[in-house]
């Protein structure tokens, strides 16, 4: 009987007196930074050597609507990033490809030129940075609503590649960091 009394008394006093809380700093929530980096392909272009040979003009150019960067959520949150371009050429002609980022009025915001030799064994890769420490402003990205792709055949219109199924291929992807909070 006495042991039980003692046991429960000690238990009660122990837990009552021990109840406490270490110092918490809830202002740390102000320092929470959420900056995910997202990446995805953005544009792919492919043409055959046959089409290049059949083309009367050495220059192919076309504007393509591209509204991904104009999305309010993206343009409000983006803080830095890059666009990666890649050119692959198995045709028999050296090619120069110009990529221009255009705004709503068709003004050129940024230009990137990629050159590649005929039947190139390596791709031509270029990563263009925007924002952060780059000299290129993020406003270029925020205001881009179209991509102009221009390809110039620097060779002839008759040669045939030794490669099977010769093509000129343009690839691109974007990788951007966003500040969600």
């Amino acid at each position, binding site marked *: 009987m006495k042991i039980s009394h003692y046991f429960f008394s000690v238990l009660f006093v122990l837990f009552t007196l021990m109840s*406490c809380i270490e110092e*918490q700093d809830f202002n740390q929530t102000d320092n929470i930074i*959420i900056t995910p980096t997202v*990446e995805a*392909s953005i544009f792919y272009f492919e043409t055959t050597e046959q089409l290049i040979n059949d083309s009367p003009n050495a220059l192919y150019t076309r504007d393509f609507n591209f509204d991904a960067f104009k999305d309010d959520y993206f343009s409000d949150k983006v803080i830095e990033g890059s666009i990666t371009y890649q050119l692959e050429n198995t045709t028999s002609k050296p090619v120069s490809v110009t990529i221009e980022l255009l705004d709503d009025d068709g003004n050129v915001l940024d230009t990137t030129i990629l050159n590649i030799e005929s039947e190139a064994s390596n791709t031509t890769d270029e990563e263009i940075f925007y924002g952060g420490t780059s000299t290129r402003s993020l406003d270029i990205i925020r205001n881009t609503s179209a991509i102009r792709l221009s390809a110039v055949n620097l060779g002839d219109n008759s040669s045939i590649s030794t490669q099977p199924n010769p093509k000129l291929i343009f690839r*691109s992807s974007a990788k951007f960091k966003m500040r969600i909070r």
Partner: protein
Amino acid sequence: MKKWLITLLLVVCNFFIYGQNKQLLYDFKEIPQSLLINPGIETAYASYFGVPLLSGISFQAGSSGASVNDFFANDGLDINDKIRDRALYGMSVTDELSGTYQLEILNVGFRGRNNPDNFYSFGIYNEGDAIGYWFKDYAILGFEGNADHLYKRFDLSHLKTRGDMVNVFHFGLNKRINGRLIVGARAKLYSSIFSFKSTKNKGYFVTTEGQNNLLTSTLVADMKLQTSGIESLRAAADDGTIGSVFTKRGLFGGDLGLGIDLGFTYNLNKNTVITGSILDLGFIAHSGDVKNYVFKGQSTIEGVEVILPDALVNSSADFWQDLVDEVKTLLDYEENNDSYISFRPTKLYGSVRYNFGEQDRRIQDCDCRAGGNKSNLGYPNGLGGQIYVINRPRGPQIAITAFYQRNFGKVVSLKTTYTVDKFSATNIGFGASFNIGPVNIYATADNLLSYRNIAASNYASFQLGINVISWGRN
């Protein structure tokens, strides 16, 4: 505001898990509310009447993962590192945040006048329950994005949550079959105030090296969120009539359901007792004010694709818009009002108890009226073990409890428990029941060791209440 919301969320997370394990109240037969956990409990009183709104107040919450202290301790560490180490990569998808509360509105019990072997009880209580498992891959995707996670499948099934608020109208019968066996059953009518459920999500999002372009983004989704009552509460909040909508839906104006509790007590011998109960074996049919959100489909994209000469066919084509339209077609989002059924979180309790010490003849004699003198009531000491199992969206959770109960006549009963489960191996609880004349006051709380630093606690709960008890001939 956001800061407070996050703080509140984490504080709530801090006190979580086990859902409804009331290991202190279970088989604490000196407290009338133990009848709600085992309708087949051995009862000593002739009748009881719970003080409305004060007879049974319980709250439990917990987090099997991180605690408030893990994030907000003033330790000089960068909170972003703490979130990354202790939440993003420190918690697993089986970690959960859950909580429940129960508020008795009415609780009355009385022994049958013509058949004292029968003890009847009825009442109303309001109950809220919610659980959410750690949505790990969503959190990683949200915090870090998909870059540098090539080939990682972000699993959409990590979103698994359910919750509801119901009023429960119940009527129970506790019957002594013979000197050894007591059985009980409680019928329940649920009146759902609101409910949400998203437990069967499937799919993934993955970024891989592209086939044509540099990267391929693939989304496979089969997701559904089912809700009922939330739309009318949202509208009522705008109109300032939320109280009346709560009342209406809680008093049979919402979705209705049925359930049953079953329990027993069996005296193996003069000192040894086994008990068991199964609670909330039931369902609610949701058909009014239902709104479901369904997202289903599969899409693989590599950005805008222009392949000549095919693309020359339509020189004015908007390839970007075509891509957007294609994705919208492949990933179907819809809202509907289809009725659905939600099952109650069924609980199972069991115990074995060894009573010892000199039996209080007054309490034992009382029970003679209701079944003979083989009662296990009136012993000053009880020692034993309990098991608790609750059905959860990711499968059953189990808790094992050892307990010691000490009764000081009819006036004071004390119980202490030590509980082990996957979330804690140091859960010590303490409960007390005091009878001052006809007034019964009880209070229980557990995980008391965590009170050394409440902010570091992963779990806490309490139950308290006031009843008026008539001991009959005692």
